[in-house]
């Protein structure tokens, strides 16, 4: 079976909700049935074949070609299989992802992997604000799985994050790891202001010294036994994180945010 491939015919003027195009919805449907599914775009309902040329049959292997930044909710609540996005993706990519993997060759918008539960998201470009975060008003962001970003991420990455890994090869914006409850965010590049703002627990693993708020306390230099195990778990990734030479276990440990519970930690490579 060949991949079920959606090739965008033109860039829509309005944003489009692509949430119906996930494996659990498309399995067992013929191309005609898939073509007749409707997608919300502003006030309009568009047929899938109004926007896309569709070929292939394997709903467990979905490909979206010529993707652009106003295609939202790609891979929403995906349960198994894979989605490969050639191009950019809009907001709410991998929203509530349950299992399976999503790969994007370009950049993605706001709230990627928002409230993601499990699975794997790989973004080759940059990600917008609120990566792996919770919806406004909700208390639990990402609950599991792994996000890999090869570029930079915006502000509030991992806001209210509960579990899982966010791996960022580039830089992170302000408020990275804000209000984290647990989980791990690793940033190879630079981090912005208010790192770990109001974080309760969780780990921010950094390659470069951040500018820390006064509510983070220095716990000294340490060799931590869990770091080699954490780095070993990245071995299979298509990433610089998989390179054994970048691994380290010697860190400066800062505890915070002391204005909150204060059980979180910022670990900076020594």
């Amino acid at each position, binding site marked *: 079976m060949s991949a079920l491939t959606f090739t965008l015919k033109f860039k829509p003027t309005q944003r489009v909700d692509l949430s119906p195009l996930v494996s659990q919805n498309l399995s067992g449907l013929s191309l005609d049935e898939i073509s007749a599914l409707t997608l919300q775009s502003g006030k309009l309902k568009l047929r899938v074949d109004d926007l896309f040329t569709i070929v292939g049959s394997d709903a467990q292997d979905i490909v979206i070609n010529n993707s652009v930044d106003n295609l939202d909710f790609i891979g929403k609540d995906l349960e198994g299989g894979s989605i490969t996005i050639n191009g950019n993706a809009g907001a709410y990519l991998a929203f509530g992802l349950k299992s399976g993997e999503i790969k994007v060759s370009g950049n993605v918008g706001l709230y990627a992997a928002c409230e993601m539960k499990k699975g794997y998201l790989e973004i080759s470009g940059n990600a917008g604000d609120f990566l792996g975060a919770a919806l406004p008003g909700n208390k639990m962001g990402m609950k599991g799985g792994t996000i890999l970003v090869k570029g930079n991420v915006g502000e509030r990455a991992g806001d209210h994050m509960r*579990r899982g890994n966010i791996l960022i090869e580039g830089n992170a914006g302000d408020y990275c790891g804000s209000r984290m409850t647990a989980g791990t965010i690793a940033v190879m590049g630079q981090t912005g202001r208010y790192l770990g703002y109001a974080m309760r627990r969780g780990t921010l693993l950094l390659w470069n010294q951040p500018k820390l708020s006064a509510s983070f306390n220095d716990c000294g230099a*340490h*060799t931590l*036994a*869990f770091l080699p*195990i*954490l780095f*070993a*778990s990245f071995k299979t990734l298509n990433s610089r994180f998989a390179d054994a030479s970048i691994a380290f276990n010697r860190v400066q440990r800062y505890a915070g945010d002391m204005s909150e519970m204060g059980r979180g930690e910022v670990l900076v490579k020594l």
Partner: protein
Amino acid sequence: MIINGVSIDATFAEAFPMKATRAIITAQNEKWAMISAQAMTGFATSVIACGCEGAIERVLDPSETPDGRPGVAIMIFAMGGKGLAKQLETRAGQCVLTSPTSALFSGIDGGIRIPLGKNLRYFGDGFQVSKQISGKRYWRIPVMDGEFLTEATTGQIDAIGGGNFLVLAESQPQALAACEAAIEEMRKIPNVIMPFPGGVVRSGSKVGSKYKSLGASTNDAFCPTLKGMTKTDLSPEIESVMEIVIDGLTKEDIDKAMRVGIQAVCDLGAANGIKRISAGNYGGKLGPFHFHLQEIMA
């Protein structure tokens, strides 16, 4: 059956179903991993009074351990899952958590999950940190030398305890030398432990006693000093008997360990004072696993 002048009795070892687990202890170097492992498996020779049977299975190369440090694999066997879990947790808390530079990991991926460091985390008094990596939960417990890293659970699986054979020799030094040779070979076999001191037991027991409070007592039929005063199982030239007890994960593992052990004893042969190999059983009525010596050595 006679091998190199050593007579192999037409008898069998009788063994019992047990529950087993394995844990991996790592440390800054092999010396400290071994110290911790020895502490954890100390006073674990027999379920009769120790609550479990445990021993070091083997030394692990750093490439075989989860954190890439030198390590030691230990196995613990008990009659039931509840008892096993209690022994494991108590020993981990008192012997590994306390041991400098140590870390503790699961040695069995499958099976029923039982707590390894899951409850030890409370020693961290709220400063403990959980990390879930590749589907496994770890606890980082702050301690005075840094952090104690432990996996939350390990696997409990069905196993077999009580495989054994007896070495009957013309003298005590000859019996011990033969047992040492056997243990050296048996320790190369995976999935088995020999839980007694140095792998050898000199006080084999029988079921029951003349004293009501005791469930087991000395195996007088194999005590050489009693040859003239009890229904002995020893011929006049036998002056010393020693036993090797084997616990293993499967019948095949114990078969293999018994075979290499008995072979090592027989290689010394009659020329070195080894006269007979026998085994301990209870008439075949108590334990469902029977290890027939002649079948194993055939």
